[in-house]
């Protein structure tokens, strides 16, 4: 009958209802009544603690909606707390040596978005590697040292006092990285990137329509590349910095508010300018770091903050 309701004609006549199936059907219905998925449950909380020997690797895959928060402590343990608004989301948490895998799965595909909220709160040793993947909801990481790869479609990523090789990839989510150290790669289509008070020595930021703000010091010998297709690229440097700066845009504009502090290149290199783009080269201090800013149609703004 269901098939006919959706406009489907059975290719062959329906087989007769067999008596031998009766016990099976009865058992199936009985079991379905007992299944936890059928129970109406309010918010639930799961907590698990794992001892680790060395530097753990934490892998999280959250296909539900929700926040992932990771902080550190001095203990050689990983503590995982998962909370959910309904039982239409399930957590799988397991340990394999020093690897901790956490997955939040959707158990009921017909569930409404509000029922699919699953938040994860982890406390990990200070030196921990992270691989997080989520669809939406904030990723927040604080005071963790180690390589990390953080991926999100629509959720934002906030990092505070983290260090290591940090890879952040979003579709529409934005990145805020405060007091980060090490190497940072960020790529996004419409997400913004804000890098505040960093100690990063290698930075690659690329967004198609988002904005980029770099407010902080350039580490000597550091390499910095910041590109936005349509957005604003703004760099605020200090008078103590030392870097070579190359800024270029195809159809956008360069707003150089620090022209007085930028000298011509002092390294004797003859820079090649294209007549199809506009921009400039300049040096601050001894030009020890290398900074490249570019845009397609957005504005590049350079200013000194002190």
């Amino acid at each position: 009958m269901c098939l006919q309701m959706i406009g489907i004609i059975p290719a062959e006549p329906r087989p007769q209802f067999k008596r031998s199936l009766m016990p099976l059907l009865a058992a199936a219905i009985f079991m379905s009544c007992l299944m936890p998925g059928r129970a109406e449950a309010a918010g639930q909380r799961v907590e698990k603690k794992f001892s680790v020997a060395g530097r753990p690797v934490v892998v999280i895959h959250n296909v539900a909606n929700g926040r992932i928060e990771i902080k550190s402590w001095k203990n050689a343990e990983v503590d995982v707390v998962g909370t959910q608004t309904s039982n239409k989301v399930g957590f799988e948490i397991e340990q394999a040596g020093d690897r901790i895998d956490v997955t939040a799965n959707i158990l009921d595909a017909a569930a409404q978005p509000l029922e699919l909220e699953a938040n994860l709160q982890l406390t990990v040793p200070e030196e921990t590697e992270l691989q997080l993947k989520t669809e939406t909801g904030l990723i927040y990481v604080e005071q963790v040292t180690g390589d990390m790869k953080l991926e999100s479609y629509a959720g934002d990523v906030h990092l505070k006092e983290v260090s290591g090789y940090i890879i952040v990839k979003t579709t529409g989510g934005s990145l805020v990285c405060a007091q980060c150290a090490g190497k940072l790669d960020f790529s996004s289509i419409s997400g913004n990137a804000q890098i505040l008070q960093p100690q990063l020595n290698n930075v690659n930021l690329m967004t198609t329509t988002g904005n980029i703000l770099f407010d902080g010091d350039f580490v000597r010998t550091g390499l910095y590349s910041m590109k936005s297709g349509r957005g604003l690229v703004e760099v605020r440097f200090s008078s103590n910095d030392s870097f070579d700066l190359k800024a270029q845009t195809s159809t956008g504009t360069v707003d150089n508010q620090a022209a007085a502090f930028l000298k011509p290149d002092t390294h004797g290199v003859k820079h090649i300018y294209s007549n199809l783009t506009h921009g400039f080269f300049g040096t601050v201090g001894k030009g020890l770091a290398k900074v490249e800013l570019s845009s397609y149609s957005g504005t590049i703004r350079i200013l000194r903050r002190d």
Partner: protein
Amino acid sequence: MQCKDIELVLEQEGLEPLPVEAREHLAECPECRNYVADLTSLVDVANKLPAEIAPPERVWISLRAQLEAEGIIRTPAESPVVRADSWWESMRAFFGNRVIATAMVGILIAAAAVFEIRKDGIHDSSPPLQQSARGNSPAPAAVPSSSQQLTAAPSASTAPAEFAGTAQALDDQEPVATGMILSSRSPVDASLRENLKKVDEFIAECERHLKEQPQDGLTREYLSAAYQQKAELLSAIIERGRSIN
């Protein structure tokens, strides 16, 4: 009335009210009485189940596709289908395979990388220019403002020649990918669609600019990166679409 007649009556007319002939047969046949008792208890338990939630449209679509694929059902005959529909289905089936979709994305990225290498070689041989010709001058009038930017998906026909293959492959893949999340009202899918639109608009703008300024290397870099982003985005959409369906 025989036992098999009872089965037929129950299937066609349900448990109640049974015809007189059936009731007479039940009075004489303990096996059929047990059968009816089993059915009655099943119906009672089923009635106590929580109310069904109407499944989303995609579940029916997926169910129909699976049943058709297994030859269990056939769709009602319709007027002759235009050829574009069969092409669409074959493309959908082709790209529906995750392995092939991933391979396609890999090929596109590799093509973009090859282009980058070739482009660098071309730039090295260009004559050096000691000063920026335009300095901080405003953007040329030929370049449209953001309000004039295209909102439609870019077409392979507007792509620079060296990108034509990549653009065509992406154009072919785009309706397949978007079709997989077409009925979804999830905020994540809405975000993916919105970002696909943004990257399409950006690609169209870069392609248009390169048509006017074919030697603009920086725009080429942005266009190449945008193709790569689009390929990755389509791959993500397909993967999500498969998990939904």
